[in-house]
């Protein structure tokens, strides 16, 4: 069974690309805001991995990340940040073991590589 990946990004171009790029290997679900992300999670659909954009209009990736970690049933889901601003990630993402980040615009093979690395580690 294909592993579940949730992509959270307000940019439809990005979610579309990830969905299509990873579609053959993973079961990808795309949502476009933090709110939608929690709606998805609250339906007891726990993905194997979340790809999380940082700059989103309603709720920032940091906020989403924080709330996921605070919930006991979600706190072990590995998260990969998708970001245009690597400098911010470098400052904030450090210290979380299962986490990684990838800089936009990324190539699909590279993204796959990162996802596999983290899923294999768990």
């Amino acid at each position, binding site marked *: 069974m294909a592993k579940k990946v949730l992509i959270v990004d307000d940019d439809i171009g990005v979610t579309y690309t990830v969905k299509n790029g990873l579609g053959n290997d993973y079961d990808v679900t795309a949502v476009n805001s933090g709110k939608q992300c929690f709606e998805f999670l609250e339906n007891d659909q726990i993905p194997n991995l979340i790809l999380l954009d940082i700059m989103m209009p309603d709720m920032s990736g940091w906020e989403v990340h924080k709330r996921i970690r605070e919930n006991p049933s979600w706190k072990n889901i590995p998260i990969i940040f998708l970001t245009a601003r690597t400098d911010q990630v470098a400052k904030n993402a450090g210290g979380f073991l299962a986490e990684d980040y990838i800089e936009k*615009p990324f*190539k699909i093979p590279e993204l796959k590589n990162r996802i596999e690395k983290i899923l294999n580690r768990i």
Partner: protein
Amino acid sequence: MNVNFSLSLKLTFIVVLLSTAIVVSLSYINLQQQYQKEDDILTTISRASVKNFAEAHSIINSLEDKFVSYAFFNNSSIVYDNITVLIEKINEKESLETIRLNTINIYRPENKSKPETLSIYVSNDKSLIGNPSDIYNDRAFDTGDSFYILQEDKPILTIISPINISNEIVGTQEVTISMFPTTVSHEEQIKYIIIIDFICILLLIFSLLYLLRKFIVKPIILFREFTQKIGQGELNTKVELNSRDELGDLADSFNQMAKDLKESTEKISEYNRILEKVLEQKDEFIGQLGHDLKNPLTPLVGLLPIIKQKEKDPEIREHLNIIHHNVEYMRNLIFKTLKLAKLRSSNVEFDIETLNLKDEVANVVSSQMMLFRENNITMINRVKFDIFVEADQLRLSEVFKNLITNAVKYTPKTGGQIIIDAEKGDNFVTISIKDTGIGMNKEQLNRVFDEFYKADKFSSEHQSSGLGLAICKRIVEKHGGHIWVESPGEGMGSTFYFTIKLSREK
């Protein structure tokens, strides 16, 4: 202080020379005049004596401070009356009864003020004169010539001249002028003159020096201090000089200049502030734009390879290839622009460690082996193993990578050689990367480190963002080194140099 001292010294020298010259020449002129006066008197006396007795007498009477005597005699009794008449004429108011021409008669004038200084000897007997002059008396009487006799050992001038009355020489007159007192007075005078001269010279020197110091040297010192302060950036300085001359005007101009300078400096710093703000805004803008471009690029970068893979039509595949190429170029450009903007920001942090230079070069070289092979490049790493530098490893590698790929890019496909070498200096090591490529002309040499500058021939080449060398420059400068390039000319290869801090440890 040196300048000041030497100026004073020069002025002192000039002043001493000038005052000495003035005083000495004045004294000389004075002395000359005095001598001339005395000469004149002598001449007048002798001439007067020749002409007539009366004039001579009056002149001799007019002389002061001189011991003067004169005598005359004749050897013809015929002249007696004439002589008497003559003497009567001379001393109209004085009695001549005491004069007896056959014997010695001493005539003392009744001049009470200087009775001792003037004596007149009148005699008709030449033997009684008792001077060496008697021979000359004879001669003067015989020939009618005048004689001037200066005795060798005594400063006495004797003038002997014939007495000529009615075209007949009736006797001779002898005037003796003792020059002794005058000579003495000359010597003393000269002594006095020297002392006075000396005092005058000193006074002149001191007053001139005082004036020069007050009016020239002091203002100069003021101006010097002023310019020094201005040079140190103290623009509130003023020259306090209250003289209403050219120097005062100069001081006013200086003060005005300082004021203007202050105003324009303030303006410049204000402009600088604005400029810095604008630059910051520019960096901010570039950063924002770069980041905003990344999202729309993601589908292009992510999906194009997938579409390319799935497309069967070779023509569309070719088009997609070109689009893909352009997208990759754009991605590269955005990454590099952002990197450059980040390097420019003041809070960029470097992870400085001690690195072995030869190892670092070898790492970069081995990662580029494919590139060398494809372009027929021979790579020579001449860096000695004992050189250690202080640098951020990733960024130093980036500099090497940029410079090496640059060298390969500008070497014709037929092949070439790249030599990397390093030379130790006192605190820095100078690294050189020499290629056998197309070289550079002057304009290119001046501009290669500019952002977005590309050497003309390759500007259409997509692989070149025109930012690689700008990034190198910024990295090297952030490390405290500098970077430059040399090329003998187009087609003759280029050598890039940069300096990096030597490690103190080992």
